[in-house]
């Protein structure tokens, strides 16, 4: 029996024809026609979460799906699993956190799967960081996935197709210390996935705002050999380590006058 807590991936495996039923319900679901997105995203989403993403009533979506597969429509619909965090007033602590933004709007527009990128950024999040995800729809499944990593969320809708969600440690249960945890006064900048020389440009743009003694923690895919001379020339100290394979961390500090 299809309910709000049914897994969408399993459902589509059992009834592939439901892709078209879902696409007919709402434009958001048309993306499930993309095989890659369907394979990666659907198993992580319940029917209830999918309804929330598309902004359609859960009961209506469950009834539509039941009708399509020949199940009785009148049976009760269980509610979706509880979501960690949620809407409400903007938490004051967000002002104190350093935003690490991952904008996946372009990825989704191109039909690419952004989940791995978001999770990678969440894994690299320091104690003083907030992960800010920009998406063309409310990324409801992420609330659950990142909630299990101890991240609470706060959501803003900036436009019909522009959502900004802040994931932060908040009041959520403490998570294990990230390998990329930075000093409390640190700002963080994730430049992974950018084509050279954008990583260097992004870093250099942030340096002017750095007060003496403050640090900027940069997350990179490789050691930025061409950035070091620029840092040296501008009077910044820097240390590099590799907390895990494929992740290079550079801590940049403005030298005390």
């Amino acid at each position, binding site marked *: 029996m299809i309910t709000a807590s049914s897994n969408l991936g399993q459902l589509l495996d059992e009834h592939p024809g439901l892709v078209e039923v879902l696409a007919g319900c709402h434009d958001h679901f048309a993306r499930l026609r993309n095989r890659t997105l369907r394979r990666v995203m659907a198993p992580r989403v319940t029917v209830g979460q999918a309804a929330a993403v598309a902004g359609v009533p859960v009961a209506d979506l469950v009834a539509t799906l039941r009708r399509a597969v020949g199940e009785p429509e009148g049976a009760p619909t269980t509610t979706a699993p509880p979501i960690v965090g949620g809407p409400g007033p903007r938490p004051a602590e967000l002002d104190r956190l350093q935003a690490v933004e991952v904008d996946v709007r372009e990825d989704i527009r191109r039909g690419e799967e952004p989940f791995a990128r978001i999770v990678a950024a969440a894994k690299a999040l320091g104690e003083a960081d907030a992960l800010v995800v920009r998406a063309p729809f409310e990324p409801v499944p992420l609330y659950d996935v990142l909630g299990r990593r101890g991240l609470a969320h706060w959501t803003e809708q900036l436009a019909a197709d522009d959502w900004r969600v802040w994931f932060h440690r908040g009041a959520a249960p403490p998570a294990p210390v990230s390998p990329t945890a930075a000093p409390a006064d640190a700002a963080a900048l994730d430049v992974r996935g950018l084509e050279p*020389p954008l990583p260097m440009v992004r870093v250099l743009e942030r340096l002017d705002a750095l007060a003496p003694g403050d640090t900027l923690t940069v997350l990179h895919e490789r050691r930025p050999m061409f950035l070091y001379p*620029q840092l040296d020339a501008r009077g910044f100290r820097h240390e*590099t380590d590799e907390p895990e394979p494929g992740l290079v961390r550079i801590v940049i500090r403005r030298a005390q006058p």
Partner: protein
Amino acid sequence: MMPPGPGRGVSPMLPLAYLVTATAAFVVAALAVPWLAPELAGHYYQPSVLALTHTVTLGWITLTIMGASYQIVPIVLGRPIWSERVARWQLALTATGVVGLVGHFFIGQWSGLLWAAGLVTLGVGLHLVNALLSVRGLASWTFTARLVALAHVGLALTTLFGLLLGLDKVVRFLPGDLFPNLHAHVHLALLGWVLPMVIGVAARVYPMFLLAREPAGWPGRVQLWGLGLGVPAVVVGILASPGLLPAGALAVAAAVLAHVAWVRDMVRGSRRPSLDWGLRFVLTGALALVPATGLGVALALDLLAGPRVALAYAALAFGAWASLTIAGMLLKIVPFLVWYRVYGPRAGREPVPSLPDLGWPAAERLSWALLTVGFATLAGALALGEPAGIRAAGLLVAAGALAFAVTLARVLHHLMPCARRATVAPARRVGAA
């Protein structure tokens, strides 16, 4: 914390000096193709054809790889270059040696080859010393690091073999016939030096530009073992033990196909909205590896034979594959080096142009079309031995090389102070968060 590196990056003018010299050699070689069409329609063992071959292999391909390695190797291996001064001496010696070598090949004065070959050997020796001391103490011998090391062994052996071949022209002492020795020298250069260097660096650099995940898994092992075992088998097979040649050729072919499979996977996983012309050059080059390898295997298995097929094979390998790949890499490297030199110190302090602002896509597209069609046509015309076809194809290649050089010249003109002022004013800010 591991040390951040000495912080002394190589001046971008060093690799640029190599790359400009190499591009000049490419243009000279391309212009020579239509001019040498009658000779190219005959046997390859002629003074002018040997001069053309060394202009391409040493002047264009080797100088480019050496220069690019001074920018790319620090990035992909995370190690600074040991000595910039040695690298400058190396360029002077190698470039002078190449000019002497090509000149003496062209006029057919074998005795004069020796001093030129000696200069090239000295230049290559300095490169090897610099490379060895740069990777000394390398913590992790990655796929790229292993293939770069293998390539440098191939470079050392190729150079030594070339020097011995030159000596043999004056004092005959090498055992065996001339042509097996010559073929072994060519294959040491192609399979032992150029191929491992390109596919080793590609594994780190292509994902960087394609915005794709770095490749991993069994194709890497196939490439390492295929080249590690296949290249010695090919060379020994050519020189002394013909039974090894087919096995070696098949091992190298497996390595090449594994590389092509990796490139295909990276393209599929690319997050780029579209490919720029530099990447199109590189990917077209990777595609050309397939027919080049097929022809090479057919020659090794004696399914095909003769100087016409051998010349077509060389045009596909050194032209369609190596030249297109290298030209594509230069379209990524040169703008970065110029940008870094001119605009890097200003980045973050004032608006600076982006890399695409430095390029000239229309000329890049024209160059790509002319070179792609030109090399494919040239391979066909060489196989047929048709001077008119070779001249026509050569004109396409020459026009493509000129368009490529003009593209790079337009990028390089940003090094001039007047060009900087003109560009910065209307440029958009790069990378604003």
